[in-house]
């Protein structure tokens, strides 16, 4: 009869324990900063596989998101005779919200899952314990470069996404729907503030970069070293990253744009 109650207790303790493990893990990774500074090559290789290879999906998605924003925004705004503010709408929604958030979600799917699977497989094939045998700390050698590559790549990718999105909105709004070009850019420039909007968006994407990559490498490192365990860890990595990004987005938005 007490079985269900015990189950709840056990799973609560398990998740608390996992949260603690994840934080200790992050601290351990941070101790690897000096090693990264000494071996830039490891970092470069990871920025390549995490960032450079994500450019295509980020760019194409950004273009289409911007084009859809231009189209939808035009239909709503033209009812009020306010098509001129289309540029503001497209740029504000991209720079503040969609740029960081959609980039982080795509990043979790494109790069985060790959990181989890790679590290999980390394664990399953005992490469990590092999490194430990040779007195090489796998957290410093394998995990730290991947985490920092993610943290570096995310803001750059989010900026790229926003830029391509604004271009897409411009293409649809000005090119296809005939919004006035001067009004499109000048209204945008009048309303979008560099510090309030763009820098806050960059800070958001930096936080998302930490969260997504942290979850990805931790899930890989913490996975059960079997093929099924790695597959579950990969799924969890993407799902948790999506939750965390959306939750943090709310918190950060409330902090940044709460007061006027």
């Amino acid at each position, binding site marked *: 009869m007490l079985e269900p109650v015990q189950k709840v207790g056990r799973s609560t303790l398990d998740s608390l324990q996992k949260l603690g493990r994840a934080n200790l893990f992050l601290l351990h990774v941070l101790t690897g900063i000096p090693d990264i500074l000494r071996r830039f*090559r490891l970092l*470069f*290789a990871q*920025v*390549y596989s995490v*960032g*450079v290879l994500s*450019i295509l999906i980020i760019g194409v998605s950004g273009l289409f998101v911007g084009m859809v924003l231009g189209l939808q925004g035009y239909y709503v705004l033209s009812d009020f005779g306010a098509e001129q503010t289309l540029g503001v709408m497209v*740029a504000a929604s991209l*720079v503040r919200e969609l740029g960081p958030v959609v980039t982080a979600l795509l990043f979790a799917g494109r790069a985060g899952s790959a990181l989890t699977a790679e590290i999980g497989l390394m664990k399953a094939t005992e490469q990590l314990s092999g490194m430990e045998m040779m007195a090489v700390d796998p957290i410093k050698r394998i995990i730290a470069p991947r985490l920092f590559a993610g943290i*570096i*790549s995310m*803001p*750059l*990718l989010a*900026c*790229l996404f*926003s*830029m*391509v999105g*604004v271009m897409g909105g411009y293409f649809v709004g000005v090119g296809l729907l005939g919004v006035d070009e001067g009004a499109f*850019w000048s209204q*945008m*420039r*009048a*309303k*979008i*503030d*560099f510090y309030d*909007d*763009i820098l806050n968006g*960059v800070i958001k994407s930096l936080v998302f970069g930490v969260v997504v990559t942290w979850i990805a490498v931790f899930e890989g490192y913490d996975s059960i070293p079997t093929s099924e365990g790695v597959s579950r860890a990969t799924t969890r990595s993407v799902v948790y990253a999506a939750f965390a990004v959306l939750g943090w987005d709310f918190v950060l938005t409330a902090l940044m744009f709460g007061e006027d």
Partner: protein
Amino acid sequence: MQPSRAIETWVGLFVAVGMIALFFLAMQVSNLSDLQVDDQSYKITARFENAGSLRVRAPVSMAGVRIGRVSAIRFDKDTYEAVVEMRIEPGYDTLPTDTTANVLTAGLLGEQYIGLSPGGSEDYLKNGDEIELTQSAMVLEEVISRFLFNKAEGGGDSSQSDAGSTKSGKASKK
């Protein structure tokens, strides 16, 4: 794995593209490029009975051209007026001392800004000067209530013209 030279090139390219994107956002999308607070700019103040929803950084324009920005808005607790401080770009240093400042609205529901209309004086405003002639913001509620009040007094005359205007409005919609 590719040779590391190629990887380094790609990473460099990636970082450069990201930086270009940030630069594009800063210069093309945001107001950073026209926000450079010039130390050369000079400050003038104006007192308004009602500043409406004027905000800091709102444009200050003359003849429809932006010549400065609102830098601060304070409340004077002795005279119960809004004190608006603006910075005017150094190139426009020939504003007459009897310039009038109005709080205007861009469009019907748009942002509020300060419009300056030149006077005829030979003397020019200098740093720290105050504009004496000001006109407060138009508050939509007041205008509507005045309109309704006039209409109630005017009687049937205005209702007829009102009917005419709605008809033309429908026609234009078609």
